[in-house]
């Protein structure tokens, strides 16, 4: 592995780990009410339990 390889690896890993830690920290310090507005994509209710088209408020 060349020096360039190590630099690319360290830079990329550092950036990705820093981004993940930043986001995780931001989510973890949210109050309960605020955290309910964070939506993991597959937990969004698409109304798949109702054989009906889109329900909207």
């Amino acid at each position, binding site marked *: 592995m060349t020096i360039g390889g190590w630099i690319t*690896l360290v830079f990329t890993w550092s950036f990705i780990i820093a981004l*993940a830690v930043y986001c995780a920290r931001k989510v973890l310090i949210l109050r309960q009410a605020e*955290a309910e507005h964070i939506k993991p994509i*597959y937990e969004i209710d698409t109304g798949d339990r109702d054989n009906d088209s889109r329900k909207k408020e």
Partner: protein
Amino acid sequence: MGIILAVAGSAVGLGNFLRFPVQAAQNGGGAFMIPYLAALLLLGIPVCWVEWTMGRSAGSHKHGSGPGILNVFWKHRLSRYLGCLGVFIPLVIYAYYVYIESWCLGYAFFSLTGRLGEAAQAGEMKSFLSGYQGLAGNAWFSGIWLAYLFFLATFAANFYFIYRGVTKGIEALNNIALPILIILGVIIMARVLFLGTPDPAKPDQNVINGMGFMWNPDFSKLTDAKVWLAAAGQIFFTLSVGLGSIITYASYLRKDDDVALSGITAVSMNEFVEVILGGSIAITGAFIFFGADGAQQIAHGGSFNLGFVTMPMVFEKMPLSALFSFLWFLLLFLAGVTSSISMLQPGIAFLEDEFGLTRHKSVTILGAVTFLMAQPAILFIDKGVLDLMDFWGGTFCVVLFATVEVIIFGWIFGVDKGFEELHNGADIRAPKIFKFIIKYVTPTYLLAILGYWMYQDGLDNLLLRKVSPESFPYALATMIGMGVFMLGLVIATEFAFTDKRQAAKHVGSKT
């Protein structure tokens, strides 16, 4: 903590462990990582925010698929036609993705029965995979029928879950299963990194050189447009942006739901799994067992092959290899199920929102369409049909759709209004530099990639000049089939919107 695990679980799919290593290996290892990182920063993150924002906003207008969503932001007929890409892409990807997903189920089964272990011990995994795919008769397989059986089971399971409305149950299961997959990924990564030099006769095939293959930058490849296109395509594929899925899911959000932190958290978790785990396991493993040329050869053999050839050989170097192998492929299968179900959602939303069909009818229609579309990918895999669908559906059209979205968001809707919309209910502020990036950098970057690729390779690809004579009829039929499907979506969209306009006029004249 549950929310982090759920986000991480949602972010993991076959793209992380199976597609990414192949893309990296096919495009020169280290040469791929610079365009990949650039694409993450300048395309993936901005387009992710654009999609979450556009989707949530259009949802309040009762539109949840590409044609309707783009038309909310740009009241022009062309927006609806281009928006059809948001339905076309996920369905084309689904048609072959569900087959790859079924390989995971098959490999989990063969891990349990011990058949996979026999091949891994003898280092005959390439032969095992080609036998499973029905490309060659060998000691393990005499045809494609077992693979087809696993495909049918997987396809039926997908549609059962979505028809019966139990996808939430699957997602709850995945909230447990996928974090385990990530932990398992960390264990396997550790094992790969301590493989050393397994074959003393080939001292060059060691861990450090394997890492070098993945990370040593090769600047000469940076002039190749295909590498940039592949990197952008992989970023979009893995983050599920530019596919039509995120924009559809976001359309079901409430106005005060956060999209800024939700989006970037999903990106960060996905990248952690893909680059740090996915990148360290399959590519390094492939290099150690097959060398640089061997790894590239396997990667060129099929868009998803590398992980299926390499992973069983890594497991063979671990204690309880059959158990690890079974768990790995089963968990990967579960990850694939949620991803493939999400690919059907844009099609369902399209039929529900634009045609007023019930969910059951929409699912039934999609079941029939995608089953037919999957057949060429399965039966003519040796003619490159699956790879062709992956290139046009999973790379080119994704980049094209992302270009359309970001131009509409940044230039037609307006980046200032868009940023305001992004921050409604947001738990973080997106850095202001992203206004500039979304308006200028991302569209220029995407147009440059598309333009440069068209100049370098576009005509050759469109005219199928690089396809071998025996594969040509199959490739041509695939291209025509995809074209007809896209045209059908455009015509259907035009009918749907004409009907809606007439209905609105009718109501207007009555009042």
